[in-house]
Every structure is written in C-alpha cells, then in structure tokens.
C-alpha cells in the first residue's frame, strides 16, 4: 500500500544491469544514468566490523585496483549475473535514488531489468529480489537479445527472422527473433571482460609486464581491433615488470591486440555459427538476406563488423549507439509494458 502510494512520486525505470556498466532509462526522459557497475565498500575496524558504501559508479571505478586494505572496490555483477547479492541491491538502491534525487518520498518505481538469456531461475530471482529490495514495487525481466532487438528498432513483430548479437561486458548474447518471440538464443561468457583478461595475459606472456584491468580496457578501446587487416596503431602502456618488480613502459600494436583477442572473437563467431545451425531454414534465409545486427560495447571494437562479415558471410550492421541499445529497448518495452506482455519473462 505504502509502495503504491510512493509509486505516485516515482518514475518508471528501465535498467540495463550490466557487468561493466549500469544504464538507467526513465520514462519520458531517456537515458539518465550511465555508470560503471562498481561499488567501493569501506570495512570499518572495530568490534562491530561494519561495512559501509563508500562510492558507487564512476567514483568507485577510479578506485579499482587502487584501494587500501580498508576499502574494497568490487564489481558485484559477474558474467552477467549477480555475484554479490547485497552489494548489488545497495548499488541499485543508490542508482534509483540518484535518478529520483529531487523527490521528497523514497521512490518506489516500476522497473524493467534485462537479464542474460542463459541465466538460471536462481540468477533471475536474485536480480528480481535485488530490485525489490532496492524499493521497486513491480519488477519485469526481459531477455537481453529481445531488449537489444527492440532497442535496435528491428522488425521483431514481423514474420521474418532478425538476428542480434549483443557483446556486453560479462556475456555475449546471440538471439534470433521472429513474430515477437525468441526462436533461438544463446549466452556465452565471452565478452568485454574476457577480452580485457586476454589482453592482460598476452602482455604478461609476451612482455613479462603486469597490467591492470583498467589499462587492459584502455588498450582495447584505443587500439583494439577485430580485423587483422585493420590499420596498424600503437600505444604505450605502463605496468609492473614481473622479473624485477619495477614499473616499465612498453609500446603495443593493434596487430598484437588483435592476436590477443583472437581467441575471444573466435568463440563469438562459433556461437553465431551454432545459432545459425539451430535456426529454421526460412529464418536462416531471412537472416542471410538482411544480416546480423551487433549491439553492446563490444560492437565498438574497431572493424568488428568486417571480421564478423568475413567469418560468417553475413551482412553486419552495427547499430547507431550500441552501448545504449539494450537499455533503449528496455525503455521502449517499459513504455509499452501494458501491450507487450509477451516479451517479458514470466516465471
């Protein structure tokens, strides 16, 4: 009852609770929040051993790998699902309050959250409970490929196959959609985080240099490329030399990054091919005619479209704003929630 009353003073939200970033879409306002899914927790000393939230989002991300013993900067989402239930709840609560900062009452919005299509019932329930714990009065879940397809403005309601690939932070999702439903979907835990990890491993293996997650991500964004024939770029990186423990700098080329990412990209291509194998022939023909739509942060990897086109033989379409495609899809589903009941997950 109280939640319903508070609901009058709340805006409905669509949340892309991603492993790397959390985006929030507010009805009639658009995307109002795009923050890293990172929480910094201070561990108080003393008999009570209290934990308190020190920072959330961008501020907390700056602390990643740079924290003293009393502070812990953690990413509560891992591989697209909740790794730390309590911290995820606190993070959501923080973000929900942040988008309702001018409100007198504690917000109690309706929320749509996207979940990986490969998530289990337990993982989905954890996300739902976490959102309810954060104060929402109603929670709808939507699968990421569906949200991505809606956000990309694909003709999902038509009797024609639409294939979408969402390369996120923790998971990559492949989905084939027709007539408003998912015909085939697959979630693989190869995405941005795995690419960063691959770059870290490559640099350590080749140069004996230890670099952090943030540096690996910067390398990926700046000179990372998916296509080996891309224009060669260079970047100077700094890390700790394993042999003597002294920080050193090293120049790395895009060709090297490409070879570091090769394994991850091959995994994604394999998932696409598996999806095409499992697709009914008529839908496969539609997809071959129209192409594969790529969304998510991974779509921003340089020349990923050329690599995918070469490997799959499909026309590759990168959406206009791949990072926000999923949350936009969630937002559109939120606005038409009453009429699009079929696209949500019913447990």
């Amino acid at each position, binding site marked *: 009852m109280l939640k319903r009353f508070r609901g009058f003073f709340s805006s409905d939200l669509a949340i892309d609770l991603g492993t790397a970033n959390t985006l929030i879409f507010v009805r009639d306002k658009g995307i109002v929040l795009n923050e890293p899914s990172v929480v910094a927790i201070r561990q108080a000393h003393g008999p009570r051993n209290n934990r308190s939230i020190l920072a959330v989002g961008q501020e907390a991300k700056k602390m990643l790998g740079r924290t003293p013993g009393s502070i812990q900067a953690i990413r509560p989402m891992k591989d697209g699902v909740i790794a730390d239930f309590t911290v995820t709840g606190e993070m959501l609560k923080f973000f929900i309050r942040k988008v309702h900062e001018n409100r007198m009452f504690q917000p109690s919005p309706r929320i749509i959250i996207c979940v990986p299509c490969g998530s289990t019932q337990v993982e989905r329930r954890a996300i739902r409970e976490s959102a309810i714990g954060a104060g929402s009065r109603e929670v709808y879940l939507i699968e990421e490929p569906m949200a991505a397809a*809606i956000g*990309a*403005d*694909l*003709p*999902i*309601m*038509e009797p*024609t196959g639409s294939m979408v690939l969402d390369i996120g932070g923790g998971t990559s999702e492949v989905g084939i959609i027709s*007539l*408003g439903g998912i015909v085939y979907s697959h979630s693989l835990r190869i995405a941005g985080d795995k690419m960063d990890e691959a770059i870290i491993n490559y640099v350590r293996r080749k140069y004996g240099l230890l670099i952090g997650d943030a540096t690996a991500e910067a390398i990926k964004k700046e000179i990372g490329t998916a296509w080996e024939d891309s224009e060669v770029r260079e970047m100077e990186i700094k890390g700790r030399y394993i042999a003597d423990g002294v920080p050193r700098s090293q120049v790395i080329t895009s060709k090297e990054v490409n070879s570091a990412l090769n394994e991850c990209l091959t995994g994604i291509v394999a998932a696409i091919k598996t999806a095409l194998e499992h697709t009914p022939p008529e839908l496969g023909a539609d997809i071959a*005619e*129209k*192409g594969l*739509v790529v969304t998510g942060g991974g779509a921003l990897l340089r020349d990923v*479209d050329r690599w995918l*086109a070469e490997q799959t*033989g*499909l*026309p*590759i*379409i*990168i*959406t*206009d704003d791949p990072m926000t495609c999923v949350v936009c899809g969630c937002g*559109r589903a939120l606005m*038409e929630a*009453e*009429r*699009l*009941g*079929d696209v949500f997950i019913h447990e």
Partner: protein
Amino acid sequence: MEGSNQHSRSGPGGMLRKARTDLRLPVEDAAKLLNLSARHILAMENDDYASLPGPTYVRGYLRSYAQLLGLSPEETVASYNKLPVASKPVDLTALAPKQEISSNDRLMKMGTLLVAGVVIGLAVIWWQGDDKSPGRADQEVAVALTPSYQSGAGGTIGSDKTIDDAAVQEFGPGLIVETDNKIPLLVEPEPAIPQENTSTMPRKEQPPLTSPVTAEQPAVSSGIPSEDTERRVSAVRDGDTVTSPPATGADPGAEGVRARLVLTVEEDSWADIRDARHNKLLYETVPAGRVVTVEGIAPFSVFLGNVEGVKIEFNGEYYDAAKHKRGQVARFTLGETIETE
C-alpha cells in the same frame, strides 16, 4: 544551394553511385564484398529504401558501403537520416494482443451503468404498465359497481388511489373479501337486496369510506362500498339475484342490453359467469337446490361445471347447455344475438 537541398531530399544514393563508378567497381563486386545482394546495392543507389528491410538495416548497409567506397560513413548515414523514411519507427504492437477491457475501464463502467439503467428503466415501465392497465380496469369496474359513489364520495373515491387490488379481489372468490393487508374477512350473509335498490342505493346508507374494517361492516379500506359487496355475496348465498350495475353516466346503448340469467342448480356445480365487460357476475361453487339469478349486460360468458345438474333460463327462456357440453363442463356465450340486434 537548391541542388544541395534536392540532394539531401533525395538521399545518399547518387553520391554512392558516383563514388562506385569513379572507382569502376561493378555492382556485383561491391555486393560480394559487403555480403549483400546486387539488388540491395542498386536499391541504395536509387534511394529505393522501401525495398530494403528497415531503417536499422539500411543504416548498416550504407555505413559499410560508404566505408568500402572511401566515403564518410557518418555523412552518408546523416544524409539518409534526413529522409522521412528513416524516422519511421517499427511498430512493436503489431502482434501484441488486444488490450482486454477490464471492469475498471471507464468505457466499461459507463456501458455497465447504461445497460443497468436501461434494464431498470424497462423494468419500471413494465411494472407501471402492468400496474396501470389492471388499475384502470379496476377503476372502471369500481365505477360501474358504485354509481352512487361517483358523485357522492367523489372527493375521496375519484382518484386512482381509491381503486386498488383489494377491490377487485372482492369479486373473484365471491365470499371472501381481502383487505389491503391481505387478511381475508369473512362476509356475513345479509338479507338480499332487491335489484332495483342496487342502482339507486341512497348515499346515506353507505358506510363512510374511512370507517374501520369490521366483521359487521366488511368494507375494505380501498373505498369499495361494503354494502354492495354484502349484497352481492348474500345474493349468491340466498339464491337470489346478482346484478351487474350499469355504468353511471354512460350511454346505455353503448353499454349493451341488460339480460337476465337464472340458474336452477339441481346438483352441486360451479359457475363462472361474466358479462359483456368481463365483470365476474358469478364465480363460485353453487350447491344443489339453489336458484341463482344473474343480471347484467349481455352477452354473458358462461362456464359451467357439472352442466347436467343445472338448468338455465335466459331472459325467461329455457336454454339447453348440453350442446356445449365438453366432458362435465360447458362453455358458451349467451345473448350475443340480442347484442347484435
């Protein structure tokens, strides 16, 4: 300037075609490099976007094609975005189930109220119609039966209110008069009143309309004169005369001809005799040995039980009811010829 406006309206097709021809790249080769069909390439160059899948796909094709031809993908897509076809969103609700109308829907509420109102209105109309039509008949009956009250106690009788169901029921069972409160009152027999007195009964002999209902004065509170009731009932009991009084103020010619029917009951029988106006002149079981005289406006509608035990005399002439006999009963009409005459 005009040319550039026209170019922006027509889309990036011309620019793409020019770039391809400058590169001397055949359409087929361009299509192969982009994993597209030649039809798609030609559609883009002709700005025929209706034949392509949708805005999202078209933007992707344009971006790839521009990149291949060495053009700026952003500019090419921006040129396409200026076209009206690019801003047409996909209809997500094409297959969405039609929204079910719930009971909370305003239209539904109004519709329900409207239907309920119509039903109630019809019920009221039916009730009033059902109530009024017998009421009028009752009034007529009452007027016919109480000629002296029309003028005498008109102040209280004249309205519809004074004519109620109780008054009508009085003439049904014959011996029982029901009051408004549904308590049957047995009417004590009284000496028969001559027929002549019935139509000219003086007003002073009538009990007051507001007098309480007693056993001695079995007047119903409805305003039906108790004397008249007593007279009728006693007449039946004593085997005398039952009359149907003429309507006061009415044209005798229009009312019909008065007739007389005498029933000599030799065996127990029952009779239902009604006059031309369907007033019940006799409606009861008649024990053997009674002689009942009925007077009223012809024709009479007669329905007799155990017809063999009853002798009928109509206007002084014997009438053989056996020809109408069906089993033990007979149903016939008397006085039709008189009426026609």
